[in-house]
């Protein structure tokens, strides 16, 4: 009985994601085809050659016809072919890149939540001690520092200062798809991506924790004779998590947009890198494909976040 509601909810949300993805890719498709210029402008072709190329790729047809074909393809999961890397199919390409971005993003999120919660809780239970002041001021520095500053700084430290020790750690081979085993490869970019948000989470956790430990049920827990660590971990922490979870949605979006910058700085072959490249190249289909994948990632990540709510707060049911 309980699960039926949840499954129904998931079904509805997935349907919504499909519609969102369709809408996003349509808008991007139409928008990008209406931009002046075309894929081939940089190739300095004669007008007749240009015409021939456009004809070869069907780009001289009316826009609605192109759009219809695009939609038909999309419904089959086919995003067409690249114009620049001629003949390369886009769906597997952006699919692979989305996986890389998701992996880096997930680790960044783990840093954000793990580090943020840890610092927030410690600051709260040591309120107004030097530890609290240290963490609180670190958090202020953390979130007033954009992720590219953190990234550049980390590059400097690990790739330049510590070059002997790290070797080629920050070097990603062409065609690297993010092997799930090598955390070393992605942990530094993930940290740069997650750190500013970890500061946000730390501040929120601290505030929420301070609120929770004043609650009556914490007094009840102490009245039972529970040791203080159990009072904090079992009774306070889970309740303090509730407001933190509400910012996970915006956080996921922040991390995904942040990944555009981070992937370009570290040269990680994910969606973010492809995003910039394909726009510079006017590689229409890839631009549309990248946006499509981003829309899907945001939708799925938000669904996962929403599914977390009832796990943490039993008062929420779908």
């Amino acid at each position, binding site marked *: 009985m309980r699960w039926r509601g949840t499954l129904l909810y998931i079904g509805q949300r997935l349907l919504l994601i499909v519609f969102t993805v369709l809408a996003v890719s349509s808008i991007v498709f139409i928008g990008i085809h209406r931009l002046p210029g075309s894929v081939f402008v940089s190739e300095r072709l004669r007008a007749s050659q240009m015409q021939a190329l456009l004809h070869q790729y069907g780009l001289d047809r009316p826009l609605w016809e192109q759009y219809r074909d695009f939609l038909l393809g999309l419904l089959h999961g086919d995003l067409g072919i690249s114009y620049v890397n001629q003949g390369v199919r886009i769906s597997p390409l952006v699919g692979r890149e989305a996986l890389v971005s998701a992996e880096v993003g997930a680790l960044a999120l783990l840093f954000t939540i793990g580090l943020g919660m840890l610092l927030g809780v410690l600051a709260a239970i040591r309120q107004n001690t030097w530890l609290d002041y240290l963490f609180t001021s670190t958090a202020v520095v953390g979130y007033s520092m954009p992720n590219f500053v953190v990234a550049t700084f980390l590059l400097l430290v690990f790739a330049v200062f510590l070059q002997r020790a790290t070797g080629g750690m920050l070097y990603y081979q062409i065609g690297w798809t993010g092997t799930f085993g090598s955390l070393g490869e992605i942990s530094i970019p993930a940290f740069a991506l997650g750190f500013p948000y970890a500061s946000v989470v730390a501040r929120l956790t601290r505030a929420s924790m301070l609120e929770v430990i004043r609650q009556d049920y914490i007094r*009840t*827990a*102490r009245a039972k004779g529970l040791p203080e660590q159990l009072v904090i971990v*079992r009774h306070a922490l*889970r*309740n303090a998590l509730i407001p933190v979870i509400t910012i996970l949605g915006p956080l996921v979006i922040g991390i995904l947009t942040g990944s555009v910058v981070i992937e370009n700085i570290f040269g990680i072959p994910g969606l973010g890198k492809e995003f910039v490249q394909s726009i510079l190249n006017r590689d229409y289909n890839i631009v549309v494909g990248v946006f499509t994948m981003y829309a899907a990632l945001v939708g799925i990540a938000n669904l996962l976040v929403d599914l977390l709510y009832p796990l943490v707060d039993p008062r929420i049911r779908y």
Partner: protein
Amino acid sequence: MSPPLLEVRDLRIRFFTEDGEVRAVEGVSFDLQEGEILGIVGESGCGKSMTALSIMGLVPEPGRVTGGEIRFKGRDLLSMAPDEVRDIRGKDIAMIFQDPLSSLNPVLKTGFQVAEPMLAHQRADKRRALARAVDLLRQVRVPAAEQRARDYPFQLSGGMRQRAMIAMGLANAPSMLIADEPTTALDVTVQAQILDLLRTLNRETRTAIVLITHNLAVVAGLCSRVIVMYAGQIVEEGSVFDLFERPQHPYTWLLLRSVPRLDRTRPERLRSIEGLPPDLIAPPPGCRFHPRCPFRIEPCFTEPPPLQEVGPGQRAACWVTMRRAHEEMGAATLLDVRPGAGSGVHGPIREPHRG
């Protein structure tokens, strides 16, 4: 008579706030016998909860117990190491609170919360503790206890929640249960059921109960002995019968006049006590009740009255006492005494500066 289960001597609690030291509890002493139900009454803010929490070692910041002794089974809780007190908490002395909804953790199942005191004191493994939690819920008359144990607190009614709190308190069969306003947050019919439950449990398990309330009717139905507190001090103490029949402190007397009584045929005017309890940072000199007392005489303004015998087993802290007020003013005049009006046994000596 066997030694008391709990002896509180000259208890002092202060809150160290930015505005100054709040003298929340000052010089409170009382005994609790095994199996007894003791009532503590008084207006809100008079120090009932802090007295109770000090027994548990749970006085909140910025408060601190600044003096006195709390002897439980002969051992002074105040001089024990924190871990020793924690070992007694929830095992030998349990406490339940006013608002059962906010006092239960919203994200943990009721059954687990009832079982937790057993786990905290290693009385049972988790499976057995959970099974016993269901038994306890049954014992406190929770219907469909097995199902309720699997529910979260928000899924229970107010009465069920307070029953669950009581079950939690009884989990380790404590020799003493402190109930701080256990019925204040509940509606009247449920109140009666909960009080009934406490009475039954006291009879069946011989658990001594300290019942804290601002409601005299609650005390009348349940307790054998009552302590009346005002502004952090005990003003009167005695058996329920004596206190209700022959209150000697004007505060008790006025408190009784502020509740309707069905057992009286003589018409009485219901009156609430005028004025407010004093500021505990700078309490009034002399008797703390004198600014609101209709019977004050000269010493009341300067000399704090000691708690002294006013009858067999009854003590009051008053320079006048109601007996003398009756003798000198007569019952008819007393009926018209307006609390705080300063009609006085000898008339007001001088107007105290007000406000």
